[in-house]
């Protein structure tokens, strides 16, 4: 079943067009990777899918499970099953990881049933401990203020912890590998792999091929200047690793200028 369909997406930020007609379809159970040089619009795609208010969609469509995503607020998108692991997670001082996650889970329950009294605290704690164990996180983590003073690795692990707790159907990982050492990268990747399955679609956005050694994509797309210019299998990523992006630039920027 086709989960996420992006059709001819044009996006501007402060009147500058960043995405210039991007199309992509991701089905349940598939892992897609988008690679591309810096400044090509990868993070813009991630933020636009989540509904960041600074990104204006000027043309095109995003359909998720037959819903028009562009009509939904970010919180509605999340409750519909879309998840974004941020490249730069935001600190929320004074709000603990546990309090935050409980609020997020209860918001889901309340949206489904306005009478819902919220998840029982014991059930919540048990769930949270299981997920933290999976990501090899100290349980004390739950009591820390969200992303406040977290190391780079802790922030990324906290993103995957949220993903594990919220159980999305479409996860977008925006440069989740940036700022991670090899051990953290392995733990985070194992976490993502443990969550993957026939019900989850994944979009991995990355600059480097490194992450794709751990999270194996079914499809690799190369993005350049706001569009997807090449699509292929996992071998395309390896090809990029060896050849760099220059050949892509030569091939497509020349035709664009011609």
């Amino acid at each position, binding site marked *: 079943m086709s989960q996420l369909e992006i059709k001819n997406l044009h996006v501007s930020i402060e009147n500058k067009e960043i995405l210039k007609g991007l199309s992509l379809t991701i089905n349940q159970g598939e892992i897609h990777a988008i690679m591309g040089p810096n400044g090509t619009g990868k993070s813009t795609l991630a933020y636009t899918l989540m*509904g960041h208010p600074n990104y204006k969609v000027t043309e095109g469509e995003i359909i998720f499970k037959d819903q028009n995503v562009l009509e939904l*607020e970010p919180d509605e*998108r999340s409750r519909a099953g879309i998840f974004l692991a941020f490249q730069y997670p935001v600190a929320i*001082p004074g709000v603990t990881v546990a309090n935050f996650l409980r609020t*997020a889970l209860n918001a889901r329950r309340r949206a489904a049933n306005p009478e819902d009294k919220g998840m029982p605290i014991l059930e919540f704690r048990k769930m949270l401990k299981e997920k933290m164990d999976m990501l090899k996180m100290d349980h004390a983590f739950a009591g820390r203020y969200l992303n406040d003073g977290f190391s780079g690795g802790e922030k990324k692990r906290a993103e995957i912890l949220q993903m594990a707790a919220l159980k999305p159907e479409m996860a977008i990982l925006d440069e989740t590998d940036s700022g991670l050492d090899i051990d953290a990268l392995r733990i985070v990747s194992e976490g993502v792999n443990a969550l993957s399955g026939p019900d989850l679609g994944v979009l991995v956005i990355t600059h480097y091929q490194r992450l794709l050694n751990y999270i194996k994509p079914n499809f690799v797309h190369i993005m350049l200047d706001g569009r997807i210019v090449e699509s292929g299998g996992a071998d395309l990523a390896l090809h990029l690793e060896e050849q760099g992006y220059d050949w892509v630039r030569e091939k497509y920027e020349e035709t664009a200028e011609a």
Partner: protein
Amino acid sequence: MQEKPKVSVTRTRRDSASKEFSFTAESIPDGGLKDIRARAWDAFIKFSMPITTDEAWRRTDLRFLPAADFKIPKDGEFEDLPGVPENLLRPLTGEQHGGQITLLPGGSRVELDPALVSKGVVFTDIRTAEREHSDLLNRLICQVVKPEDGKFAALASALAGNGVLLYVPKNVIVETPLHSILWGPGVDLAHFSHLIVYVEDGASVTYVHEAASPNETGHAMHAGIVEIHVGKDSSLRFVELQSWGRHVWNFSHERAHVERGGNLDWIFGAVGSRLTKNFSDLDLAGEGAQGRMSGFYFTDGTQHLDHDTQQNHLAPHTTSDLLFKGALKGKSRSVWQGMIYVAPGAQKTDGYQANRNLVLDDQSRADSIPGLEILADDVRCTHGATVGKLEKEPLFYLKSRGIPQADAERLVVEGFFDPIMQRIPFEGVRERFQQAIQDKLTG
């Protein structure tokens, strides 16, 4: 192009408020405090109404205070006014009260555990104290806050028929918290209160005082005094909450005097009143004295709250730690002006003050003015003041996890206040503040 209409402005309301109160010497209550009240009255008539060229009143304007309209409640007047809501009578600290006093317009109610009476603890209203503990009251009153400290201090000292005397004898540990409520319904009324808290050497007590009223159309005022004495090696935890109605002009002079080795944990919560001007001074008078001041405020509508704090280190090895945090909505305004003073010779003192504000609307405004005056050379004093806005990125982040806008805002605001909550050892008080956050955000 259209011609602009001519607009002429004439100032007709410049002096719409009366300049002076209409109280007279006949307003002074009879009783055991006659001499002190007379002295206070003399001080009162010498003070003119504060104006914004007075340094302490620069940011708080009383031009629209309808001073002449206010009357002192008659005896028993509370019987014709709305009663105290049940929820204000419930304990905020611990399971039950050791004593409770309800101060009403023209009356009061007092309850005290007989076990505390037998230990010599005095916890009663001021009129009863004038009759039954006249010597003690006369010895303790106007020692820490003087009528000469300001116009409203003088006024309250002279006219307060409501108030509390709390006296804890030497080495007496009061386990159950004491509670008082000043309930001030009605319009055109002037509520006066005078609280005296005297904790003798080696004693310990927790005391919660709350001033509240319903919202009414019109005006009312409150002028209050809080005098605190914390004896040698004694300990006081004092919580004061203010949820006056939106029609109340609220003034208070408060000072705590802490002796050698004494410890004061002083918590403020302010969410009500039309306008508040509060002076709160901490005098660390004996070696090793410690004081912590924690303030929570949340303004909305057109509220104006002005807190003026002083941390006076008057002896060596004294420690003060002040944190005031406030959020603002609507067209409201807050002022915090703080001063750490270190006297000559008060070496090895450690003073801290911080004021943090979260401005939720473009039209609300927070003024934050820290100050240090240090006359000793071996001290550690730090301060900080910030005024921040509700930022977009944290809200987007929370929303991206499925949390709706309103809940996301509440979470960020609660997070902002968390450092204050961490300083409050009473769950009931924390819950009250949490509820205030909720009410203000949705109100």
